[in-house]
């Protein structure tokens, strides 16, 4: 409870709330797109670099379990999401797949927020978590996009384009590239660039979340349009996925911090890589549905409540 309250007064969450307010009062404040993109590049590269440096110190054996758990959850979540959306929510195949693709993928900001929160609560996550992040981006989207394909409603060519889009998308390239650079450079050579990529990180995140709050606010108007089912879905599915992920992460040998971050990753919905891929592969799907679900509902839920809850569950599961 205390940890929950403490999360509400973290500068990151407060900046997100400020962003929402900024739009609600119709302020003319704008974070220029290039600044937003610059910060985004910085954050992804920083995650990758730090992850790579840590990875260079990790024995490969420690990594096998989490690696498997990530692939497993990356395939499981989009299928589960699709089934729920299609057969309980009664969405058509295209829209159900489109939304499922977002929950199969992962939100990098939720990931970062989870890392920051865990560390603050005294639980250091494993250094190789960014590797899992990069890993989780791809299969989820692919699995969900394959569904309408097998049901003969998508076109071969766009699927290929979509996979390309994800695999060569800016965020994957920065994450994976950062990982490689960090890994090859190692801790010693990283020292020179550490002040830039480590000290500035949390502050840059504040500005990033300010913008994210503004973007979220412009989605809130769509909440009514998407219907109550999707709102409920956006809150309950992350809790289910997060709980499954805690169990999977625990058995894969992750620490409490690592399990928390893993649960946040798995339960989160992408709103950068997935929308682009889905727009290409399934242009008939409605962006209002998938963007509102992942960015307008699940993201704020995870940032404010989800992450503390996942930590709580992780501690509880670890106590057995």
């Amino acid at each position: 409870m205390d940890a929950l309250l403490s999360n509400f007064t973290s500068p990151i969450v407060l900046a997100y709330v400020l962003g929402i307010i900024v739009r609600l009062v119709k302020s003319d404040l704008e974070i220029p797109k290039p600044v937003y993109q610059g910060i985004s590049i910085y954050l992804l590269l920083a995650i990758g670099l730090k992850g790579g440096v840590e990875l260079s110190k990790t024995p490969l054996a420690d990594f096998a379990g989490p690696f498997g758990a990530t692939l497993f959850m990356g395939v499981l979540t989009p299928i589960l999401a699709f089934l729920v959306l299609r057969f309980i929510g009664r969405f058509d195949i295209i829209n159900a797949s489109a939304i499922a693709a977002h929950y199969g993928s992962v939100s990098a900001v939720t990931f970062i927020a989870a890392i920051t929160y865990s560390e603050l609560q005294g639980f250091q996550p494993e250094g190789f978590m960014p590797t899992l992040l990069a890993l989780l981006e791809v299969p989820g989207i692919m699995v969900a996009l394959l569904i309408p394909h097998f049901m003969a409603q998508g076109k071969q060519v766009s699927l290929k384009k979509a996979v390309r889009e994800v695999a060569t998308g800016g965020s994957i390239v920065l994450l994976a590239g950062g990982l490689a650079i960090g890994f090859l450079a190692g801790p010693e050579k990283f020292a020179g660039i550490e002040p830039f990529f480590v000290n500035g990180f949390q502050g840059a995140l504040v500005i990033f979340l300010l913008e994210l709050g503004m973007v979220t606010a412009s989605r809130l108007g769509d909440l009514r349009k998407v219907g109550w089912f999707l709102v409920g879905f956006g809150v309950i599915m992350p809790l289910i996925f997060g709980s499954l992920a805690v169990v999977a992460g625990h058995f894969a040998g992750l620490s409490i911090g690592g399990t928390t971050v893993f649960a946040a990753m798995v339960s989160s919905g992408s709103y950068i890589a997935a929308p682009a891929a889905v727009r290409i592969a399934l242009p008939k799907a409605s962006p209002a549905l998938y963007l509102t679900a992942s960015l307008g509902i699940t993201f704020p839920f995870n940032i404010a409540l989800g992450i503390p809850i996942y930590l709580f569950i992780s501690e509880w599961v670890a106590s057995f």
Partner: protein
Amino acid sequence: MELVKAKLITIITERLLRHEITDMIKLKGATGYTRSEVEGEGSRGIRASDFEGRNVKIETIVSESVADAIMQEVSENYFENYAVIAYVRDVEVARGAKYLRR
């Protein structure tokens, strides 16, 4: 100096399609194009990746037949699924022969 009559096509669409559309117009016979970033509102309000919420505006100077081919292609393959608007007008181009391959 002599001015040559030509068609100026403007296509405004989602950023996502920026390479696809320019590839298409080159394929249809355009010898060049000019592209810029714009914002816009239209009938759909679709913004695929909301963060890059900008549209692109692609302008190309072409001969009448190429213009027809491009407008045709846009109508057939993009109107249904994407946010796109396309319009043509007459212009007079200096050094026009250069842009009017066919």
